[in-house]
């Protein structure tokens, strides 16, 4: 008998497959990118620079953009499994159900980070943000940490709603409330970095973000296999 791959090996196989599909179709990534840039432009034209400073507005713009564009990719991640019943083949394979979560989450993380990598410079450009190398690195760190939490929650709910007729509607309704504890500290940390305040002042928010990341990633991986039950 063949030795079934372990948790990480099978997760990596699933993530690679999802990324290969996305690279080939680019449908979700391009949609998310267009949505991000559109949101940034709309916020820019609605902005009155004499009433509010760019560094005060930008954190909100960034995190609204990341949250909603990320949802597009999350929905797509299980859509490809539903199209031709491929989820059945995945579930028959002798891999731990947790590896499906992990694989999907890894691919979704790459997706969200890809969108962020384009959206952050766009926001910096539009709002003329004072981003030096240190601020850029700090923001990148905050975005990676927040993406971990968003992707954990989003992947679990995407799996849960994939089989439902109203998946596109249900996913945001279920996931968005759980995004709040991630987006709130992420926005606060972003504001601190953009305002040039000492990072030490925002350490409490960093701890909150880390704590929710850990809790969400752990709980979602534990719960996910049960969401696949009929």
């Amino acid at each position: 008998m063949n030795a079934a791959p372990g948790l990480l090996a099978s997760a990596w196989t699933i993530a690679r497959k999802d990324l290969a599909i996305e690279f080939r179709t680019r449908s979700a990534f391009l949609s998310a990118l267009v949505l991000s840039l559109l949101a940034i432009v709309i916020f820019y034209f609605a902005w009155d620079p004499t009433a509010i400073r760019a560094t005060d507005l930008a954190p909100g713009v960034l995190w609204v953009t990341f949250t909603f564009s990320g949802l597009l990719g999350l929905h797509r991640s299980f859509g490809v499994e539903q199209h031709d019943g491929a989820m059945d083949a995945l579930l028959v394979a002798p891999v731990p159900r947790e590896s499906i979560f992990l694989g999907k989450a890894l691919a979704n993380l790459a997706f969200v980070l890809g969108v962020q990598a384009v959206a952050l410079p766009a926001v910096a450009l539009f709002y003329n943000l004072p981003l030096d190398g240190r601020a850029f690195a700090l923001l990148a760190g905050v975005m990676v940490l927040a993406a971990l939490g968003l992707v954990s929650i989003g992947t679990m709910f995407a799996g849960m709603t994939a089989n439902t007729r109203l998946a596109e509607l249900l996913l945001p309704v279920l996931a968005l409330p759980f995004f709040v504890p991630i987006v709130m500290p992420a926005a606060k940390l972003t504001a601190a970095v953009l305002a040039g305040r000492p990072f030490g002042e925002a350490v409490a928010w960093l701890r909150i973000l880390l704590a929710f990341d850990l809790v969400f990633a752990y709980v979602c991986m534990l719960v996910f296999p049960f969401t696949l039950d009929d």
Partner: protein
Amino acid sequence: MTARVEAAGLVRTFGARRAVDGLSFTLAPGDCLALFGPNGAGKSTALRMLAGLLSPSAGQARIEGVSLPRPEARARVGLISHRGMLYEALTARENVRFSAALHGLRDVEGAVQRALEQLRVADRADVPVRSLSRGLQQRVSIARAIVHGPDVLLADEPYTGLDEQGGAALTALLRERRAAGAALIVVTHHLHEGLALATHAAVMRAGRFARYERAEGLERDRYAAEYRELVA
């Protein structure tokens, strides 16, 4: 000897409806059960329980003595369905390779090539699945299901979409798997096709076996007439 497939009092309910109502049977190595029945009789639900995709409301299913849905049991199962279970953006080879990788095969490329050749689709292996005809997609889907050499092959309407050549390749494959000691369950509406392969034949109606018998010696035309009467 441990049975390849063992179903013991399998029941599956959806709300108040009993889709499968107490199925019990065993299949030894080399056995092939042809499962007939009208639409909604519970054939596909039974097959999904035997693949570990649905948990039974009561009873138990085992593969080689291992209870489903444990991974050790699922590792021995190959599932063919009328749905392709393929990723249309990937090529035929990538689809089969993905399945091989999830089964932890040592020689992934060799196994993939053999499976594609067996289904006579190797010459289209590097074409995205979306560009293939329905019949060729079904061949790729079968290659995906057998790439790991399963001991138990569950086939739900496997001839759907196949042309004569594809059908012949599938029949040859099913015979070869049987000869190699695999147990097969073939759900089909085509009685002659099913009986030609089967060692056992069963008719399901309302979630139960209305008939279950050894297939050797069955007179096909008479069986077909009795079947029509039974499901009428």
